[in-house]
């Protein structure tokens, strides 16, 4: 079966519908599927529930879909870099479910692994625990969290082959491998799309079984949120 598509718009064809749930990889603007997010905006699909660690910034990343009001609900751990998000949320124009970052990552991992729920100490005694099942293990209290599955997962990798095998680079890995497992359909964009056999099988982070469609990214901006440097002699 052919997994390769020519561009982001064609890779999204036939899988979008209003009200759908979408996972998008990335931490801040690092390792986000830029081409796929832009194509998702251009598709006009609306009432999206977006699962992503962050909400991008006002004019980049998932912020693009907040500008166009295509997102109905966000499931995130930190949205502090996005003023439009804060405005829409405080004006009650947007639903928001905060998850502790580790809980969010584990919910994706669990969802992809067919695990419907798990117990964690994270958030016990806080707002996060309200309404959730509590259970004691070895004298400590844990809360139950549920696995997450998305209609479509959008991920970004460094290299990929035509089988959908993926290799990430440095901290651009973040939630991408976890979300790749949790999409009913996972679409990957990669900086370098190579022939089968060109990647070392021992180096593959995401096996192709999790990836249904793959494209090579074009014109990546790879914007940096906070360029922090030191000067020589320090």
């Amino acid at each position, binding site marked *: 079966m052919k997994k390769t598509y020519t561009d982001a718009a064609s890779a999204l064809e036939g899988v979008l519908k209003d009200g759908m749930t979408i996972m998008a990889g990335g931490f801040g603007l690092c390792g986000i599927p830029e081409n796929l997010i832009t194509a998702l905006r251009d598709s006009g699909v609306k009432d999206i529930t977006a699962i992503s660690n962050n909400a991008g910034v006002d004019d980049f990343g998932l912020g693009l879909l907040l500008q166009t009001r295509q997102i109905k609900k966000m499931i995130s751990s930190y949205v502090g870099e996005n003023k439009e998000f804060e405005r829409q949320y405080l004006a009650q124009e947007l639903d928001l479910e905060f998850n502790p970052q580790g809980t969010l990552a584990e919910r994706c991992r669990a969802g992809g692994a067919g695990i419907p729920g798990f117990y964690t100490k994270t958030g016990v005694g806080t707002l996060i625990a309200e309404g959730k099942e509590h259970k004691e293990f070895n004298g400590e209290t844990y809360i139950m969290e549920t696995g997450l599955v998305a209609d479509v997962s959008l991920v970004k990798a460094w290299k990929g082959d035509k089988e959908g095998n993926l290799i990430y680079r440095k*901290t651009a890995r973040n939630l991408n491998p976890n979300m790749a497992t949790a999409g009913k359909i996972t679409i990957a964009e990669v900086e370098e799309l190579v022939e089968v056999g060109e990647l070392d099988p021992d180096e593959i982070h995401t096996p192709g079984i999790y990836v249904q469609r793959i494209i090579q990214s074009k014109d990546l901006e790879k914007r940096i949120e906070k*360029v922090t440097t030191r000067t020589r002699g320090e």
Partner: protein
Amino acid sequence: MAWTREDMARRAAQELKDGFYVNLGIGIPTLVANYIPEGVEVTLQSENGMLGMGPFPYEEEVDPDLINAGKQTITELPSTSYFSSADSFAMIRGGHINLSILGAMQVSEKGDLANWMIPGKMVKGMGGAMDLVAGVKKVVIIMDHNARDGSPKLLHECNLPLTGVGVVDMVITDVGVFTIDETGITLTELAPDVTIEEARERTEANFKVSEAVS
């Protein structure tokens, strides 16, 4: 003279022990990396998926694929490893990190921590803070002793939404060092020229004073 941000970071660095795996929060905690005591080797974990964090890059080394949890550009070390977010929080939640140094809006005398939300005003999210305080062996807070309006931040009870319950082991402020355990909160060090009376005036929580200070 009360402690400066640098003084607080330097004092927090004394909690680093040789061989520790450490997670530093955003803000003043990040400065702690500048004061690692001589002869002590620690490995810095960044919860976005990196173990063995190096210094900030020189200008020509800046790499958009290499950032810390504060989204700042950083560098790797020969010992560095990268992993997914789920693996990163397995390390944190699984108790493999020795020490976390974080900022705070409020800390209670029972060690409750609030540092992620002001209802109706600030909605940024908890990021990895709830996982860190639930899973890391020792949690040290660095914060200004009082809020900008002068109100105390070391309280009987936090009135902001909590990040964790009974999770803080030590608080370092411009006033001094406080430890928290089952017996409550104890002032163990005072910044130069700060009196115990002044510390009490600026604090809502009831604290004991260790012999070393009194």
